[in-house]
């Protein structure tokens, strides 16, 4: 069979995607992207039809975060493209490698306010690492390959490429576009090798760590993003100093490490926050002093010097001055600091941190929630009776009421965590349930928890679970969501049905916009404006209408069996969990307050 002499722009797009190693894409067709969808019809690339372009963008995002591959989503012009923007903005905030392909009206019609025409380039300027518009077919291979390069290199992020319909249909000679691919790959390698900071600087940093009496590792999402968890754990083991993690870093350090103090920040553990406030040296690894972490910035770690290791020079000295900045990919720079620390530790035997270690262990013992002291095991019954709140329950009442006891979400989540295999992936939406997941569930790698950090997007959880499961079919994927968030991308239940994706959904239902309700209770005089969601639909009936098995539980005694049923089920499953609307997330650092001033209950 004669090889085709020419191909269309659309076919060229797919050919380049294949060469980039793309096997799955997420999208929704439409007028301006029809030529691309026509070419997809013959392609080996698997396209997953979502039911909203936002769902497609989040599916690509979940795919990328679970598998470390570039997530690819596509949509038509106008509303299709604008619907991708929320997912793109989320990828920008959380540094996720995404390539978004949008159709555009024909080049002749551009700028005339055509049907389904929108200036997506203009709109995406603020929420992409970079964007391309292909005005000439000759630009297509270069721009598309560069899009992949930019998305993955340095600090990852989303790149949008806008392709007019007539360009998609233009015939082009079937020439080898691999030249651009080779250039693009070289670009990625070059970015990876870049690292500033001479050995001398690393030596100085190591000296600071040795000299510090109260050092602490402040670990951020950058460790997971750079795939340097092993290198981090080497450093943590060697240095034997306390560590705290941000939301995106959960799972980086071995959670069984005795000096791991938990998550820090607005809903972090008291031990983590107090330790950071007392520390004299922050070793910041792939973190950016986000406001959810620092609380009142001027009051954050007031006595600490800072060693800041990050790939993005713009993050260093942006919010907090660094005494030593080590710019570069942690995959390269962590081994360098490890070497220096190792060298110096072997020369000097000092015990200047013994008191600090005891102090941190004491803080951990005194302040970590009871629930996370429980050993990760099958002791399910142990967990559902000890609430984190300070409500006193007399023993007899506890005994009598055990079966009638309402479900306490953190307890359920802790039990769930114990039942899941270490390689299970958990996605969340945003709000109280998200914080409870972060506080009570345990992860063995940062890629196991996929949660919207920087942008905090409700509606994130279900589509990202879909993308994660597609990228990692052998891993159990659980999506913990709330009744508010669940409704936001509800249409993606159709995607679950279409592809029979066996995600497990745990819906924590308090019939409220929970986190906002909590803030209204604490800071707005209990004026519960627009946070009552008690008119929710029947979620079980809703799930079943999509062919998804579902069940409601309301009592603590039902939890263990329900979790087992959900995990044993071979198909998708929705576990609808009703909880008390008054349950709040503790501790909480109020706005404009330093992290040592945590609130632990309603006044």
């Amino acid at each position, binding site marked *: 069979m004669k090889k085709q002499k020419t191909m269309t722009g659309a076919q060229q797009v797919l050919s380049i995607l294949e060469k980039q190693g793309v096997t799955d894409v997420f999208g929704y067709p439409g007028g301006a992207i029809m030529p691309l969808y026509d070419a997809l019809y013959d392609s080996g690339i698997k396209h997953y039809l979502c039911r909203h372009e936002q769902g497609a963008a989040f599916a690509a995002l979940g795919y990328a975060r679970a598998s470390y591959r570039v997530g690819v989503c596509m949509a038509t012009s106008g509303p299709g493209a604008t619907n991708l923007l929320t997912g793109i903005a989320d990828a920008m905030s959380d540094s996720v490698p995404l390539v978004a392909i949008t159709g555009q009206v024909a080049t002749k019609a551009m700028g005339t306010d055509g049907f389904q025409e929108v200036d997506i*380039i*203009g709109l995406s*300027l*603020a929420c992409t*690492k*970079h*964007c391309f*518009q292909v005005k000439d077919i000759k630009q297509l291979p270069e721009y598309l390959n560069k899009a992949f390069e*930019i998305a993955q*290199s*340095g*600090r990852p992020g989303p790149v949008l490429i806008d392709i007019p319909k007539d360009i998609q249909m233009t015939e082009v000679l079937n020439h080898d576009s691999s030249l651009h691919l080779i250039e693009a790959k070289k*670009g990625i390698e*070059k*970015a990876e090798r*870049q690292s500033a900071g001479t050995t001398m600087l690393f030596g100085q940093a190591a000296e600071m760590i040795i000299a510090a009496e109260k050092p602490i590792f402040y670990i951020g999402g950058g460790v997971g993003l750079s795939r340097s968890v092993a290198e981090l754990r080497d450093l943590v083991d060697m240095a034997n100093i306390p560590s705290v993690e941000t939301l995106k870093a959960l799972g980086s350090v071995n959670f069984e490490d005795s000096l791991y103090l938990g998550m820090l920040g607005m809903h972090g553990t008291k031990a983590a926050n107090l330790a950071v406030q007392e520390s004299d040296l922050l070793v910041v690894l792939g973190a950016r002093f986000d406001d959810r972490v620092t609380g009142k910035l001027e009051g954050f770690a007031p006595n600490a010097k800072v060693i800041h290791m990050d*790939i*993005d*020079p*713009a993050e*260093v*000295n*942006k919010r907090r001055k660094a005494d030593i900045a080590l710019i570069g990919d942690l995959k390269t720079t962590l081994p360098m600091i490890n070497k220096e620390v190792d060298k110096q530790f072997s020369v000097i035997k000092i015990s200047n941190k013994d008191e600090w270690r005891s102090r941190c262990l004491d803080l951990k013992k005194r302040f970590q929630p009871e629930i996370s002291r429980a050993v990760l095991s099958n002791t399910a019954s142990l967990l559902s009776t000890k609430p984190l709140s300070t409500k006193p329950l007399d023993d007899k009442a506890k005994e009598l009421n055990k079966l009638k006891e309402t479900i306490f979400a953190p307890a359920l989540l802790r039990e769930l965590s114990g039942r899941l295999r270490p390689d299970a992936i958990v996605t969340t939406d945003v709000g109280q349930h998200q914080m409870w997941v972060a506080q009570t569930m345990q992860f063995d790698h940062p890629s196991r928890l996929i949660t919207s950090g920087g942008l905090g997007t409700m509606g994130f959880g279900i589509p990202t679970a879909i993308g994660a499961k597609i990228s990692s079919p052998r891993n159990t994927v659980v999506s913990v969501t709330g009744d508010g968030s669940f409704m936001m991308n509800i249409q993606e239940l159709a995607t679950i049905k279409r592809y029979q994706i066996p995600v497990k959904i745990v819906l924590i239902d308090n019939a409220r916009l929970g986190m906002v309700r909590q803030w209204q209770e604490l800071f707005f005089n209990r004026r519960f404006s627009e946070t009552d969601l008690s008119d929710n639909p029947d979620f079980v009936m809703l799930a079943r209408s999509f062919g998804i098995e579902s069940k409601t539980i309301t009592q603590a005694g039902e939890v263990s069996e329900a979790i087992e049923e959900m995990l044993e089920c071979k198909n998708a499953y929705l576990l609808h969990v009703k909880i008390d609307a008054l349950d709040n997330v503790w501790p909480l650092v109020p706005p404009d307050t330093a992290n040592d001033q945590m609130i632990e209950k309603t006044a």
Partner: protein
Amino acid sequence: MNSEDFAIEILADNQPTVLERLLQVTRFRGYPVSGLDVKTTDEGANLNIQLIVNLKECDEPSRANEMQKLFNQLSKLFDIKHVNLIHRRLEKRTLVANKQTVYC
């Protein structure tokens, strides 16, 4: 131009999005623009941009730091090849920082 004005010289790829991205950064990060001059060079391949930002809202000792932060943000832009910070004080030009091609 006075001591609150900081000049930045930029060499960028002549792409339609360059100016908009540049001004998005100055607006979003809070650097009021008090001057802007753009010329194509190298037979239309590149843009030579002189940008002047005004830091009067910022107290004197923090200005150098704020300019470094702007420099860092501008350096991240893919189409921008070179960024020079220049602070004119009287007749003396002090080259404050210089960037070669960086991917970030």
